[in-house]
């Protein structure tokens, strides 16, 4: 796959193929952004205005907070931040603790426990939405932050990744700490965790992406406007506006920014999370 020397036509073919692929994958994104600056009448006008002649920046302000459609994206963003931050922190704590326990301690039933945790990968939200809704209702957590946070905190992928990481951490290191009189928890917090930043960041980026992006669960669990997260806000806005394509695309563009920023800042960990098959779409 390396030899370019022999065939001069090869780079040409590669660049053309890559450019065609990138073109088709990016075109919809470009269309979304360009439409968000158009006037309503110009959306489907031909030829397509790729760069709007008269860019409407006020589409963004209008969509962000509109008393007519009662959309308040400042509020939805705050909600999303609260929920996503809580889930990410709890998720990292729980998965690293569990991964460490599974990797570094021998106890009866360890492998069964690990298999049981992996089995939950076959139990996505969509399969258990009915009983999960009922359970959350029994707990009195419908329409609350608790209901948005706790049911989605635990995640088998994070446990799996953390376990893999801790297994590669040399035992001697941890034993040395224990010889110096550090307890189990202290060894974990002071020795194991600081050495695990790459794994922690990978799990954190993954949990953040999952939670920020989640639509189905908040849609089931939340009915008051005040608790809407960004995806719910986008959905209600689209239903209220129906034909105001530019403003819908403006909100869609804004909603895409946080994940894009996450990707550019944490590219390495973002890619690692997906490459180790944390693909959840």
């Amino acid at each position: 796959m390396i030899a370019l020397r022999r065939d001069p036509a090869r780079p040409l073919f590669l660049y053309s193929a890559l450019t065609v692929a990138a073109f088709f994958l990016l075109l919809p994104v470009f269309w979304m952004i360009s439409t968000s600056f158009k006037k309503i009448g110009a959306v489907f006008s031909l030829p397509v205005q790729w760069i709007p002649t008269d860019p409407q920046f006020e589409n963004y302000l209008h969509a962000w907070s509109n008393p007519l459609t009662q959309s308040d994206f400042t509020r939805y963003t705050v909600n999303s931040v609260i929920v996503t931050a809580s889930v990410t922190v709890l998720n990292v704590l729980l998965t690293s603790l569990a991964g460490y326990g599974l990797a570094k301690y021998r106890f009866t039933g360890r492998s069964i426990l690990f298999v049981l945790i992996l089995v939950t990968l076959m139990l996505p939200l969509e399969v258990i939405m009915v009983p999960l809704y009922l359970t959350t209702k029994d707990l009195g957590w419908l329409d609350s932050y608790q209901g948005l946070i706790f049911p989605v905190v635990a995640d088998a992928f994070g446990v799996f990744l953390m376990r893999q990481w801790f297994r590669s951490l040399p035992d001697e290191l941890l034993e040395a700490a224990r010889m110096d009189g550090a307890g189990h928890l202290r060894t974990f917090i002071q020795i194991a965790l600081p050495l695990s930043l790459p794994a922690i960041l990978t799990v954190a980026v993954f949990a953040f992406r999952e939670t920020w992006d989640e639509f189905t669960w908040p849609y089931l669990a939340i009915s008051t406007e005040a608790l809407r997260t960004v995806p719910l806000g986008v959905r209600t806005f689209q239903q209220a506006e129906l034909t105001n394509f530019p403003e819908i695309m403006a909100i869609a563009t804004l909603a895409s920014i946080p994940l894009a920023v996450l990707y550019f800042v944490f590219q390495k960990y973002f890619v690692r999370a997906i490459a180790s098959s944390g693909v959840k779409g």
Partner: protein
Amino acid sequence: MVVPILLFFIAFKFQPIIREILLSFTNANPFNSKRDFIGLDNYIQLTRDPQFINSVGVTAYYVVGSVIPVVVASLALALLLNERIPGVRLYRVLTFFPAIVPIIVVPILWQFLLHPYGLVNLGFGIFGFPPIDWLRDKSAVIPGFILATDWRLVPLFSIVYLAGIQSIPESLYEAAKIDGATILQRFRWITLPLLRPTMLVVVIIATIFTAKSFTLAYVLTGGGPDNATTTLPLFIFRSAFQYFRVGYASAAAMVLLAAMIIITLANLRLFRSED
């Protein structure tokens, strides 16, 4: 140390699935506090429900139609992105963009792309195809769904493949080259066999992802036209949250779960037995 997370798994994964199994044998609904055990009645009813049978067919069509192109196209893209040519890093970033578009934005964006005057028809029009009303035409709507799904999944899975390709030792290719193997032969006899585990992961995850997909159908078409996009998750949602047939919805969810398990096991076996 495993106990804290275990409590969460028990409360929000194992307890619900057991509850769902039990519910699937009852006629539970939210207005009736008394629920009766009705045995296999829900399951028997499902086999006679044309709406359910339709949604099984819709889901199968959508899953198979999406997964096969994903398995092939994301491998092709990964092979291109693996080339050591100047600027390939830029292409890796550019082609990844659809994967960071939020799940809720995908149907909203594609609603416009698949509009009769939208970009897809405009593109096909260049090649002389007549415009299609993708979202209102019963026979075009699933292909439209597949287009939207694969647009987002191909970039994601090309990253998975890329990691797999990069873990293949360079020395294998060197040796093959010395023996005079052509690029196609190297792909056929080195890359492809060594990528089998990766391919298995791609097939399984893509299958589960599409089989459980709710948001796309719910937001893009709401299941229409004429139930042509009422996937199983949508059928479950409707039965439980619109018709309040909790027991019946639970039985349908058990069918979805069983299908996912069977397909996963079948793939595991298929990929192992060919060795």
